[in-house]
C-alpha cells in the first residue's frame, strides 16, 4: 500500500506517521508538501497531527484551502482512503469531508494521556482487523478535541454505523463519547487519538497497529 503523509507548515506528527508506516510497517511512504497539487500514486493519505498554520483563525481552518487538500478531496471523492489524526481530523471536518467540528476540551486544558477506546464497528477499512467492542489503548494529545455535531447529525452517524471509535472514559466532553468517525462512503476516517504513537511496544503499547493493519487488510482485499 502506498501511503502519503501531508505536510503543512506547523504539522508536527508527520515524522511519526512516516516512521511507523515506513520503518515499523515496512510500507512505501512519502511526504506530500501542502503546495503540491497532485498526490501521484498515493493510495492512502494520512493527514497528520500538529498545529497547521499555527491553528490561526480556527484549528484546520486555513489548511483546508491548501492545494494539497483540494487533491485530497478529489482523492476521497474517487474512493481513495484518507485518515486524519488529531489536527488532521480537525482539517477533514473543516474541509467538510467529515461532519461536525472539534472544539475546546470541556476542562479547557490540553490533555496528553493514554485513553481507552471502544471499537464500535469492524465494518470499515480502518477497523476491519478489530472486533466490535474491542478496547484499544491509544494516547490523545489535544486542546481542541471535543467533538460536536447537531443531534440530527449524531443520529445519522449512529444509524449509518459511522462512529468507529468511542472513548470509554470521555476525557474531553465529546458528544456521544465520539473519538473517531468515517464519512458516508466509509473511505475517510478522522480520529483524535494518535495510533502512530501506539504502534511499538517500547513506547507503551501497540494497539494503534490494529488501525494500520486494517488499512493494509482493506487494501489487500479491495
Amino acid at each position: 500500500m502506498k501511503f502519503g503523509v501531508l505536510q503543512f507548515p506547523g504539522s508536527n506528527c508527520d515524522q511519526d506517521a512516516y516512521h511507523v508506516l515506513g520503518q515499523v510497517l515496512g510500507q512505501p511512504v512519502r511526504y506530500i508538501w501542502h503546495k503540491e497539487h497532485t498526490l501521484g500514486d498515493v493510495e492512502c493519505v494520512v493527514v497528520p497531527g500538529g498545529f497547521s498554520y499555527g491553528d490561526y483563525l480556527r484549528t484546520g481552518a486555513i489548511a483546508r484551502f491548501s492545494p494539497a487538500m483540494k487533491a485530497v478531496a478529489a482523492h476521497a471523492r474517487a474512493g481513495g482512503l484518507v485518515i486524519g489524526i488529531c489536527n488532521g481530523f480537525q482539517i477533514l471536518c473543516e474541509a467538510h469531508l467529515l461532519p461536525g467540528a472539534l472544539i475546546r476540551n470541556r476542562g479547557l486544558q490540553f490533555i496528553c494521556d493514554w485513553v481507552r477506546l471502544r471499537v464500535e464497528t469492524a465494518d470499515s477499512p480502518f477497523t476491519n482487523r478489530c472486533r466490535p467492542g474491542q478496547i484499544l489503548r491509544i494516547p490523545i494529545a489535544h486542546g481542541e478535541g471535543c467533538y460536536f455535531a447537531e443531534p440530527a447529525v449524531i443520529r445519522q452517524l449512529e444509524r449509518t454505523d459511522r462512529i468507529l471509535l468511542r472513548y470509554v472514559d470521555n476525557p474531553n466532553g465529546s458528544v456521544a463519547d465520539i473519538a473517531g468517525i468515517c464519512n458516508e462512503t466509509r473511505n475517510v476516517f478522522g480520529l483524535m487519538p494518535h495510533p502512530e504513537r501506539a504502534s511499538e511496544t517500547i513506547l507503551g503499547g501497540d494497539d494503534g497497529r490494529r488501525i494500520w493493519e486494517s488499512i493494509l487488510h482493506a487494501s489487500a482485499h479491495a
Partner: protein
Amino acid sequence: MPALTPDVIARHGITPEEYDRIKKILGREPNLTELGIFSVMWSEHCSYKNSRPELKKFPRDGDFILVKAGEENAGIVDIGDGWAIAFKIESHNHPSAVEPFQGAATGVGGIVRDIFTMGARPILNMNSLRFGPIEGRSAAAATNRKLFAGVVAGIAHYGNCLGIPTVGGEVYFDESYNGNPLVNALSLGIIRHDQIKRGKAEGIGNPVIYVGSATGRDGLAGAAFASRELTEESHADRPAVQVGDPFMEKLLLEACLEVMRTPGLVVGIQDMGAAGLTCSTCETASRAGTGIEIDLAKVPQRETGMSPYEIMLSESQERMLLIAQKGREQEVEAIFNKWDLHGVTIGRVTDDGIMRVKVGRQTVAEIPARKLADDAPVYHRAARPIPPRPLTLPPEPKDYENVLLELLKSPTIASKNWVYRQYDHMVQAGTVVAPGSDAAVVRINLQRPDLGYAGAGEKYIAFTTDCNSTYCLLDPYEGGKTAVAEAHRNLVCSGARPLAVTDNLNFGNPHKPENFWQLRRCIEGAAEACAFFGTPVTGGNVSLYNESPAAAIDPTPTIGMLGLIDDPRHITTQWFKDDGDVIILLGELGAELGGSEYLKRIHRLKAGTPPRLDLAKAKQIHDACLRYIRQGLIKSAHDCSEGGVAVALAECCISNGDALRGATVKLPINAAALFGESQSRIIVTCAPEAAGQIAGTVLGKVGGDQLRIGKLAWPVARLRDAWWNAIGRLMAH
C-alpha cells in the same frame, strides 16, 4: 536626543566606574543608543560579570565534550557513532513573575532557538519550576496558583505547538518563591558532529541576513530587566515581557535547519534572544575577530517610528541572524520562501573589528565588537557566611500513617500529572519513560529523515533535573553537591551512564554578601561533585536578583544531567513490578532529619543540617545500582529523596496507575528512619532467586493491596488517591 545625565546612566544600571570604562573603550562619550547597547551587554544576564570568577570553578573538560561551556549558544557532547547531543537550560524567572503565560512560553522559545542555532534538531524539552505555596485561602496562595497555572499553560502552549515533547522536570513549592517564581526551561537536540554550526561572523564581505518575526517594542531590554530585583513597580515593566509565536518558531526551526544542512550556505548563525540584535551582532563578530555593519533601515519592523535605541534593544521573539556565504544569498532565500519566510540582508561582515550600526548613511553606533562582547567588567563580590539554623527536634508524631498521607499530598512530593498531562510528552514517538519516574528516557530514531543524515539504528538517552533548595539554604555547599548527586542517582536508577551537566544558578542580589556567599558555596559544592562523578558542566545560565519585596529566594542551583543508555534492555522504572519480588535498600538507612520535607510540612520547620553527602560512598552505591541493572538483576530502582524511605516506598507502590502494588517491609518506626532524607539510598526490587547477588539490606516483599511498614498499614488505593490527585484538587479551587 536626551543628554546622558548621571540619572540616565544610572537608570541603565551602569555604574560611574562602568561609564568611565565605556568612555575609555570608545575614546569619547557614548550616545544614548551606545549606552543602551552597553547596558544590555554588560547586564549579568549577558556578561556574567558577577558570577564569572565563580563559574570558573566548574569542571568543563572531557574527551567527549565537543563544544565547551561558554563557547557557543549551547554545549555539545559526543554520544558515539558520529552523533552528539546539544543541550542547555535557561531561566525566564522575571518575565514569568510579571506575565506567567507569555514569560514561560517565550522561555521555551528562547532555549529551543539556542539548540537549533547549533544545527541540532530539538528532540525534548524539560523544565524546573518553583512557586510559592499553592495551598490555602490566602491572597498569596491564590496568586501562586495563578502563576503556576499560567506558567504551565505557557510552557504547554509553546512546546506542544512546536512538536517537541516536554518529557519531564520538577516543580517545588516554598514560601521563599512568593512573588518570585523560578521558570528554568531546558531543551536538548540531536546532531551529527559535522553538522555543528558556530555563531561566528566570518568571511569579510559576507552578507548578514535577518529572518523571522519583525522587530517591535516588546521585550525592550529584557536582559537588563532580568538583572534587577523585582519590586512592587515591576508590573509596570510589562512591555519588557515578550510575546511568543510558536508557529513562527516552528517555521524558523525547519527553515534554518534546512539552510544549515545545505552545504556551503551558512557561515555562522545566532538567535536573537536576550539583547536581541545587539547581542547577536557583536557576539558573532567578536567570536570571529571581525567587524559587522548593519543598516537598521533594512530591519523588518512591526511598529512605526522606532528609534535605533529601540530596534537594537528590542527582544521581539522568533528572530535569527545568519551570516551567509557571499554569492549564495538566493539559495538561502529560496529555502526561506519554501517555508513562507522572508530573509533580509541587513548588513555585512567587515574587517575592522567594529560593530557599526547605521540608519541609511548615518552612523548611530560604533563600538569595538570584542570589547563590547568580552570585556565586560568582572566583579569579585564580597561574601559573608550565614550561620546555620540550629534544629530542636520536635516530638515524634502520634500518627505516622497520617504523616505519610500528608507528605504524599505535599505539592512538592505529590504526582505532577496535573502539570505533565498538559504537556504533549509523546510527540516525536520516542518517549520510552514518560514523566513520573526518576528520569525521562527517550529513544532517538537515527533514521528520521528530518535529521538530515541517513543514520541507522537508535540511541537511548535519559535526562533529569534536580535541586533541593532547602538543603542549599541550610548548607549551600552540601546542597550544591547533593543536587548533582541526586541527578546522578536518578540517571543510574533509569539505567543510564551519566555524561554531562547543564546548570541554572538562581540566586538573590549578589551585592548582598550573604547571597553571594550562597552562590559561591553552591557552585563549589556542585563543582566538586561534578568533578568527582566525571560529569563536566557544558553550559547553562545564571539568574541573580531573584528577590521579591520580602527577601531573596532560597538558593536554587538547578542541575540538568544527561545520561546515555547503552542497551534498551537496561531501561528501568521506579515502580514495583511483580508480587513476590524482594525489596532491597542499597545504601544505609541513616537517621538525618535536618532540612527534610517532613520537618517543613509537618512541623513548619526549615532548620537543621541537611543530610551529609559522602561522594565516595555515593559513587559506590550508584555504580552498584547500574551494575545490577546491566546484569539484568533488578526489576525496579527508585531514588530516595524528599519524604525519605517511606515516601519512596509508597511511590514504588503507586506510581504505575495501571498496576498498583502493595508491599510488606520492616523498618524502625520513628520519624528519622521513615522520613529522614539521608543521601545515597536506592530502593530496588528483584526476583527472589536474584536477591543473593545484590549487596544491600532486604526490607521486605512486594505483594497485596496494602503498604505495610511494621505495624503501620495503608491501602495502596488510598495512597494513590492522596498522591495522584493532590495538585488537581488544589488547582480546582
